[in-house]
């Protein structure tokens, strides 16, 4: 079983694991370059690019505020032997570069009859809370997953952050690597014996009554939900997708064939979501084995507002997940106990250490 945030050997944060992966990749392969707004500034992209420029001054650099052009530059460099890792402090900033990503990077290998590959990694950080609002908090993993030719990695655990980033850099295809800002300070450990591989979901917790499929920060909420349910003798199997293109169907099917119920949770807007895709696919493949209609929880089809009051009930977390599972299984748990899953303190920060603004 995967070593998630809760139990840890050598304690490091998700952000430190990303930094380690970048450092190790650059040490192992001198064709790896690393750039993006802030890559070498004092804050080093939430510390994820710490020490890199000191080690490799030529291969680490800041860039002009030119997301589209600089993506194409990365693609060209990748076609000519480099392995660029480009980082954006918000996924939303990368939306300027859709032409280069979708029309060039994703197509090159296919369109030119497999003559060349584009080994580029684009790290995108998703914001949430503290009024990030409509254009600093978009969870668009489904968008990227919709593009054949892209690999889309969306890790949760510290171990996965490390191994999957390293493998993304080694991979010969364009990889969109999505980090949730609220995971950056989560703690965990890197297990060198347990290398996660691209395109493979993780069974985080085994269970028998229902399969819960999750990804990224929501998996943190899902773990809380599963632990709570376990205390009430409800056995849920939790799958962390890790990769949303391609999706690891065998792992999902095997689990759902066993539990015969599935709930998919998704931080993206409901329409056209990964959760919709999984529900559809499971329905097509396993319809006659299911004991309950496949279900999903996703974000409403509404842009994220800024105000504290408007975001208060915008997100769902462990409590809502538990309630949904209770309904699906037709069970009752004392509501005051369920309420205890509510996050204490402000809903719009990952922890009390966070004082804004970014």
């Amino acid at each position, binding site marked *: 079983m995967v070593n998630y945030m809760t139990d840890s050997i050598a304690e490091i944060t998700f952000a430190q694991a990303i930094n380690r992966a970048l450092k190790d990749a650059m040490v192992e392969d001198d064709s790896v370059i690393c750039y993006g707004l802030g890559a070498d500034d004092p804050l080093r992209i939430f510390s994820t690019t710490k020490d890199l420029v000191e080690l490799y001054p030529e291969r680490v650099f800041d860039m002009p505020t030119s997301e589209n052009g600089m993506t194409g530059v990365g693609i060209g460099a990748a076609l000519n032997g480099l392995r660029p890792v480009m980082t954006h402090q918000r996924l939303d*900033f990368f939306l*300027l570069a859709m032409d280069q990503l979708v029309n060039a990077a994703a197509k090159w290998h296919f369109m030119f009859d497999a003559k060349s590959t584009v080994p580029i990694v684009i790290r995108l950080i998703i914001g949430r809370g*503290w009024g*990030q609002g409509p254009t600093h908090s978009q969870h668009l993993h489904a968008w990227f997953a919709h593009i054949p030719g892209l690999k889309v990695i969306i890790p949760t655990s510290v171990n996965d952050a490390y191994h999957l980033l390293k493998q993304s850099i080694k991979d010969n295809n364009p990889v969109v690597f999505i980090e949730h800002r609220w995971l950056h300070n989560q703690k965990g450990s890197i297990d060198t014996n347990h290398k996660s591989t691209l395109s493979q979901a993780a069974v985080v917790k085994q269970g028998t009554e229902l399969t819960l499929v999750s990804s990224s920060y929501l998996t943190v909420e899902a773990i809380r939900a599963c632990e709570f349910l376990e205390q009430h003798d409800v056995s849920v199997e939790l799958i962390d997708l890790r990769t949303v293109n391609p999706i690891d169907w065998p792992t999902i099917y095997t689990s759902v064939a066993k539990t015969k119920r599935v709930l998919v949770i998704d931080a993206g807007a409901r329409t056209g979501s990964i959760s919709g895709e999984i529900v559809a696919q499971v329905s097509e493949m396993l319809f006659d084995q299911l004991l309950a209609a496949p279900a999903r929880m996703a974000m409403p089809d509404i842009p994220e*507002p800024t105000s504290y009051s408007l975001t208060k009930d915008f997100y769902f977390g462990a409590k809502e997940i538990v309630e949904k599972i209770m309904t699906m299984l037709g069970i009752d748990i004392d509501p005051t106990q369920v309420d205890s899953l509510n996050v204490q303190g402000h809903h719009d920060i990952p922890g009390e250490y966070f004082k804004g603004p970014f």
Partner: protein
Amino acid sequence: MSDLKHFLQHQKTILETLYLIRDIEEGIAERYPQGKMRCPTHLSIGQEGVPAALAPLLKITDLAVSTHRAHAHYLAKGGCPKAMLAEIYGKATGCSGGRGGSMHLIDESVGFKGSTAIVGNTIPIGVGLALAQKIRQETNISVVFVGDGAIEEGVFYEAANFAALKQLPVLFVCENNLYSVYAPLSKRQPVGRKITDVVNGIGINTAIADGNNVVECYQVLSEQIQQIREGRGPRFIEFSTYRWREHCGPNYDNHIGYRTEEEYLAWKAKEPIARFEQWLADYQLMSPTDMAKIRQQIRHKINAAFEFAEVSEFPSADKLANTIYG
């Protein structure tokens, strides 16, 4: 000064705008740690000169769009201070109903058409506003506020090219504060190349001015705006200026290493407000007592605006789903 007569009529507006911007921004910086303004907030302290000089030169029927750092632009265009602060506090009375926060300001009643958070996002939108003005043969103009960083976005070149092609009534106001977040210009643009040279090359007439010298700003702006109103096409003015506090948030951050305390102090010594006050006093255009009186009035207005924002209700989420489409 060629248009001294106008200037004398405008000096009070300019001074009021300077005070309004500075004291509102200082008020935000002071209160931000209370944790009630829960959104990314980019202050314009140190950069009041350009918007203040522009304030009396724009008509209410002129239009403007801006960036993540928009408080000063919104206020200079005549945007309601109460609605701005309420927006930053996330209140229902905010100019965007709490949906947008500090980076998404709007006051249509005075022609402030919107500020947005993605760098470069409003540049072509401002050009589009001017296209409509030109097609309707108005004498109004559209102002596009940009930073030195936004010049690096491809969309700037595309929009500037179109503005030049169609000779649109656009004024690009570029506040060059030397930095994009923690990156100095030297990390982003070739050293020695001027932004105005690039823009000239696109086919737009340019001017430069000391953004902390309000009188100079006023002169250059009034000349260029006059030309735009006469139908002589777009203009681009680059103003040198400096933000005093961190890129985003209320604190000072000269110690973290991307710029020096000396650089900051040198710019602070050239600060726009004290220089303008000095100028008014030197030419005996206004007495220090009168200036103090004006500032006092502005401060009352600002305190009332903070009070308004604090006591306003939070919006309810019920209406969110009904306002996605118009």
